[in-house]
């Protein structure tokens, strides 16, 4: 049981930062930006490249995140703002296409193999009968800290108030003197930074390959949608639910049912669990979680 | 009772805690043109949305042409002959005016048969003065032209009851009398109308009866000429006007 909780929490930590970034940016720019999961990969790869150039790991990760924030703003201005003028669905296709182009870039720039930061790795120690590694604790803690910092920014600062105002009613916010373009730009920047940090955390716990973005795409979306796209901290909740579903499906021993000692579902069903959960939610409770466009009059 | 085309009984609609319609009952007979009036926020558009099936009701019943349509889906209601238009009709930009008009009547000559434009389309285009823009993208029309197109398209569906949501707002004055003529003609041929409208001149010209809503309740059901002398109607409009800072209607 303790193992289950730990596994769930660490998997949730994998998903949470990127899902929060996705949700936050959706609240202002109304289309699901698929390329965000690739920003996470960019963050991890750039961080590793900087470290290889001799930059110590902490500034390397921070620099990489800021850089990705900037890249996110550039893509937003050059690509997404233009596509959004056509249609949100077009912007979604554009972000899928951008993801493919970025994948191609990773393949050429970093090769197909998985890569890792060069950090000291120690074997797991046992806590409450559960194996935990130093890096898991460290990155898990950092993830929580980043989430808290973002929450404080959102709920305790004038900037956060402006962000929430723009997301609820951009026209009204603009009328009351909020510079919506500046606020939107800032949120795009922050989403890039948070996603990149999420990618770096993942890379610190394990390794990052060019496929990571693609593999993370649907679990991250499932988490963000479950929590209600546009509701940044709903995404954390969504991440925990998705992580629990995935962990449950792979940790259950089906052996007794089929008359053997140990039979597990292949772990590759784990993503299927999160997608199935997503589809079920969309199928049966679409309105509980978001406002359906089709039924609007 | 059997002659009623539309009968609304005790209709209520709430959004969360706010009751937009409290207890609305009225009916429309064949051949009538009923105006649905009221200050902004009185629930006119909501009533139209609930009757046409676009919003689910909270309570009450709606019968149309002898059938209970309280919970029927929009297409079933339309199939029975109740067709509506929108206050701000938005038109596709990758279809021409002619195509939209053609699409007004579904299954024209079979679902999968090729589109053919019969003479009746040209007649309608003429009647609504849209012939010169027939080949234009429908979204390129002016606001007033879009309204006319939406009325014309709705008429193509051969409705027994046509529900119009502010058909004259944005329509050029010279076209209003044409619109009155077209609608009168349609009613004379056996149709009926329910019109949500602000323009009192248009109402007086067109309507045979008026229903006035205020805060979700009917406060008057009378002839157009009697409106000005109805104290509750005057109070409702004036009260609103004072609340709004003296801007009279």
């Amino acid at each position, binding site marked *: 049981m303790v*193992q289950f909780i730990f*596994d769930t929490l660490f998997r949730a930590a994998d998903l949470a930062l990127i899902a929060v970034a996705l949700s936050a940016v959706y609240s202002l720019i109304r289309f699901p930006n698929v390329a965000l999961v690739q920003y996470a990969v960019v963050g991890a790869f750039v961080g590793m490249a900087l470290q290889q150039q001799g930059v110590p790991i902490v500034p390397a990760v921070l620099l990489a995140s800021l850089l990705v924030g900037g890249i996110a703003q550039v893509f937003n201005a050059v690509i997404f703002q233009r596509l959004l003028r056509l249609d949100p669905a077009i912007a979604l296709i554009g972000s899928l296409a951008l993801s493919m182009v970025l994948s191609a870039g990773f*393949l050429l720039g970093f*090769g*197909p*193999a*998985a890569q*890792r930061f060069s950090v000291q*790795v*120690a*074997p*797991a*120690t*046992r806590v409450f009968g559960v*194996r935990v*590694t130093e*890096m898991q604790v460290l990155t898990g803690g950092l993830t929580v800290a980043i989430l808290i910092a973002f929450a404080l920014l959102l709920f305790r600062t004038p900037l956060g108030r402006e962000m929430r105002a723009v997301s609820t009613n951009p026209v009204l916010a603009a009328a009351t003197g909020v510079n919506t373009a500046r606020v939107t730009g800032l949120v795009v920047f922050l989403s890039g930074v948070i996603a990149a940090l999420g990618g770096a955390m*993942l890379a610190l716990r*394990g*390794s*990052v*390959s060019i*496929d*990571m973005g693609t*593999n993370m795409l649907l679990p991250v979306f499932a988490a963000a949608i479950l929590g209600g796209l546009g509701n940044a901290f709903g995404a954390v909740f969504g991440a925990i639910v998705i992580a629990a579903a995935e*962990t449950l499906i*792979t*940790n259950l*021993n089906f052996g007794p049912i089929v008359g053997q*000692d*140990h*039979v*597990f579902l*292949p*772990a*590759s069903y*784990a993503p299927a669990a999160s997608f199935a959960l997503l589809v079920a939610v969309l199928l049966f409770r679409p309105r509980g979680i978001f406002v359906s466009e089709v039924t609007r009059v | 009772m059997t002659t009623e085309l539309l009968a609304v009984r005790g209709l209520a609609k709430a959004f969360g805690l706010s009751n937009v319609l409290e207890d609305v009952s009225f009916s429309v007979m064949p051949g009538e043109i009923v105006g649905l009036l009221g200050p902004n926020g009185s629930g006119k558009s909501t009533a139209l949305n609930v009757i046409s099936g676009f919003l689910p009701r909270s309570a009450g019943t709606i019968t149309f042409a002898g059938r209970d349509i309280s919970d029927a889906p929009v297409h079933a209601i339309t199939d029975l002959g109740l067709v509506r238009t929108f206050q701000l009709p938005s038109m596709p930009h990758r279809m021409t005016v002619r195509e939209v008009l053609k699409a007004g009547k579904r299954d024209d000559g079979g679902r999968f048969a090729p589109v053919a434009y019969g003479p009746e389309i040209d007649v309608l285009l003429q009647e609504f003065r849209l012939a010169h823009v027939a080949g234009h993208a429908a979204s390129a029309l002016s606001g007033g032209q879009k309204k006319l197109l939406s009325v014309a398209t709705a008429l193509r569906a051969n409705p027994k009851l046509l529900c119009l949501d502010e058909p004259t707002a944005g329509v050029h004055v010279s076209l209003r009398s044409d619109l009155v003529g077209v609608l009168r003609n349609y009613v004379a041929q056996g149709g009926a109308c329910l019109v949500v409208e602000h323009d009192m001149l248009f109402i007086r010209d067109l309507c045979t009866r008026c229903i006035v809503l205020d805060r979700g309740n009917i406060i008057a059901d009378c002839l157009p000429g009697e409106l000005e002398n109805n104290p509750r109607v005057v109070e409702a409009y004036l009260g609103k006007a004072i609340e709004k800072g003296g801007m009279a209607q």
Partner: protein
Amino acid sequence: MKKMIRVLAATSVLATALPAQADVVIGAVLPLSGVNANGGEDQRRGIELAVAQINEAGGVLGEPLKVIYEDSGNVPQRAIDAARKLVSVDGVALVIGEYSSGITIPLGQYLVAEGVPHLNPASTSGLVRGIGATSFSMVGLDNVSTEFAAKDVLDRGWKRVAVLAMNNAFGQGVANEFGAHFAQLGGEVTTTIMYTSGQTTYRRELQQAESTEPDAYVFTAYGADGGLMMQEAYELGLQEDPWYSILITMHNADTPAEFKTGLIGMDVDYTADDTSYKAAYEEAYGQSFQSAWSGYAHDTTLFAAETIERAGSTDRPAVLSAIAELGAEGFTGVTGEIKLDADGQRMWQPYQKLKVEGDALVSHE
């Protein structure tokens, strides 16, 4: 639209006219990208060394031998597309390929259908045997290797083992055959976990295996997968128990030294008695063998060149009968003697027990 097709057709004629046709050309479909990229690169090195050796000695049929490499990207469809290009555009005499059985089988079937000779330089799944008439294996299949591994594991006193293998033709073959041999010899497989190759983490699979409390973990993994799996096993503390790798050289080069201390395993023997190849490899690439597969790819190329020489032309039927003839006679390469059975499969090959020492593999008898 018609105009567009005409333009496309014209440009395609131009594009396909580019490769030179003077040399004796053979094709190689290898995983040069994807999880097996390192293995594929090692195969390519083996082929290059063979080509250099052959051309130094005067080439084939008096012409220099040329190999056109195509990337399978570890995707069957792309492998078949690549083979189609080799066969119909480049007009190769035969095709060497691929690395993993899941791709070698459809690739081979395509070549068999086209009547093109196919030489399998690496795939060891038992299913390879059924590819068809014009397909030949230059490597022994799994029934032999898994029996060797099962005996080796049991000899070390590990009675209960968890098996991890990739979910493809090769992995399924290894898992099934190892399980059967191991049970027959008196051992018990606590659980068999088939994992999908190319994941970013194998924690879930490792934890599943751990929960069955085995004496040892027996696994087989391709390059990048194996490196990651060993790292995560180390981090999870699972390397307190022994790990045994079937075909250890597939992932050894991709696994950092700190995560494979004490790892043992088995593989096909590629050093045999001939050390000149090892020396040539180290001289050319400045490092020791990255896997067992360069030697096999090397021998496959030598075998191919020899058959074309015997056939006297690059005519496919002639090459086919030359392959059968040479296979029956036997041909000695750096991996030992290549002799084919009636199905065109290599009958025998040496295996070796290996252990990790630092970053390198050493014999462990």
